[in-house]
């Protein structure tokens, strides 16, 4: 950031001091010169006019010069967002070469300044997609990772497998209303995805942090078809109270599973902005995993399952731990190596 106005950098980037049209001059950002914004006039249609492609290229170079990871991707997401699209590839060719308005350029600049502070793109844009849902994102609530989309798919597969089994009976079985408990809901990605795909289900989303609960609630209300049939309350106490809606079919979680010793190596984006409690799993990364597993038998139906996203080292560790705790009567059923999730069920 400090380096952007450095004359050496400008020379390095081959930037000519061309003025951007419009009122960028009002900005007194900490990084960029308030007077003008240098912009290379490489493939722009006419002098003084900048296209989306120009701006993406420009900010990519700025990000690269400042050591921002995923410079190209960040730049593309920001510009696409301001143009009302999800990704650069999804913009039609007309948008790519239409000159940007001054307002748009200003918006892009404001967002890019945040990115220059190593803010994750999802927080910069204030939203992100999880499967086919667009969810609001807000620091420090944990940002859903792409691998977790696989976790949701696995739960759905299991659910449909159960349905098939039921329908194989010779007498009619009522349509199941699975009760699903998500532990550590964060922004609500898993809970809301499951609810969208299994509209007959009942989903209980739980989190230790009020910020996460608030964000999940907000995201639920944004998905307009979810009516306000939502109750919300807080409590301190026994897990048995979770059984208000009956024994549970699925417990799903992406619990904090990072080994404590690995925490310091995390990217700056994560360390600076995300809730580290959503990541730190203790010395062996199993602290919360063990809590969930210890809880499961008293909550699950006999036919129920626990689905957890874990570290690649955990499946063996979980298996060993379960052998040492036979009283839990849980068995590790499946390990999905794609993204490293495990499925467990009662013996």
């Amino acid at each position, binding site marked *: 950031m400090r380096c952007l106005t450095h004359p050496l950098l400008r020379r390095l980037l081959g930037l000519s001091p061309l003025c951007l049209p419009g009122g960028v001059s009002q900005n007194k950002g900490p990084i960029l010169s308030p007077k003008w914004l240098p912009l290379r006039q490489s493939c722009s249609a006419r002098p003084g006019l900048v296209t989306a492609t120009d701006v993406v290229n420009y900010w990519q170079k700025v990000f690269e010069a400042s050591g921002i990871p*995923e410079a190209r*991707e*960040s730049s593309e997401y920001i510009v696409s967002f301001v143009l009302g699209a*999800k*990704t*650069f*590839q*999804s913009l039609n060719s007309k948008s790519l070469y239409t000159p940007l308005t001054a307002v748009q350029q200003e918006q892009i600049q404001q967002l890019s300044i945040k990115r220059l502070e190593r803010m994750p793109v*999802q927080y910069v844009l204030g939203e992100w*997609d*999880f*499967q*086919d849902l667009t969810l609001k994102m807000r620091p420090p609530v944990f940002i859903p*990772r*792409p*691998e977790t*989309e696989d976790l949701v798919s696995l739960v*759905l597969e299991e659910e449909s497998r159960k349905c098939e089994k039921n329908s194989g009976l010779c007498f009619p079985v009522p349509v199941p209303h699975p009760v699903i408990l998500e532990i550590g*809901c964060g922004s609500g990605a898993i809970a809301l995805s499951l609810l*969208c*795909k299994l*509209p*007959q289900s*009942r*989903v*209980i*989303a*739980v*989190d*230790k942090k*009020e910020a996460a*609960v608030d964000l*999940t*609630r907000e995201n*639920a209300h944004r998905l307009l*078809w*979810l*009516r306000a*049939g*939502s*109750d*919300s*309350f*807080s*409590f*301190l*106490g*026994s897990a048995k109270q979770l059984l208000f809606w009956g024994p549970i079919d699925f417990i799903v979680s992406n619990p904090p*599973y*990072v080994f404590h010793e*690995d925490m310091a190596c995390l*990217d700056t984006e*994560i360390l600076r902005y995300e809730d580290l409690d959503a*990541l730190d799993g203790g010395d062996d990364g199993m602290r919360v995993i063990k*809590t969930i597993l*210890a809880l499961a038998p*008293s909550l699950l139906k006999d036919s129920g399952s626990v689905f957890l*996203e874990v570290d690649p080292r955990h499946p063996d560790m979980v298996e060993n731990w379960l052998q040492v705790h036979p009283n839990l009567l849980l068995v590790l059923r499946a390990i999905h190596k*794609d993204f*490293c999730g495990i499925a467990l069920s009662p013996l």
Partner: protein
Amino acid sequence: MSIPGVFYITFLLRDIRTPSWRPWILRKQQFSLPGVPLLQAAGKNSSFNLLGLTEAELKEQFVRGDGPGGQATNKTNNCVVLKHIPSGIVVKCHQTRSVEQNRKIAREILQEKVDLFYRGEDSDVFKEKKASEKKKQEKKRKAKENLERKKHFKEICPRRVRETFVIISIHSFQTNR
């Protein structure tokens, strides 16, 4: 048993309307079933009769970052590169910000391209393209025709110039004597 820490139960979500959802199975585990055709009813391809693709024929590449994956990283590059090994066709999809969606769309696009590759003019994809091109041309032709017709009409029926009338009234000043 009691849980350490405070749990806030957020809410019980109850859906009222039922959005439709078509089960679409795509798992790497199905490598063990090479004969199982996939993409039977995948999105917009369900109205077409396309050659099925199996996961065994596909090679997928998407960047999820080096080192520990999952929680420990926050990569935003969700671009999916999908190759159909027998034909060598490669599709790159970055239409959405979700990896799952991009994988889905990549397969749809790849299935169309592969069908076109093997079936050529017999492919539903080809036929649809031809039909839509024809429609476009027809539309253009009709528009042109309409324009010509309008021009012609103007030539044979020029607009009349409106004449301005001045009305004067003449009063008689004859008086009855």
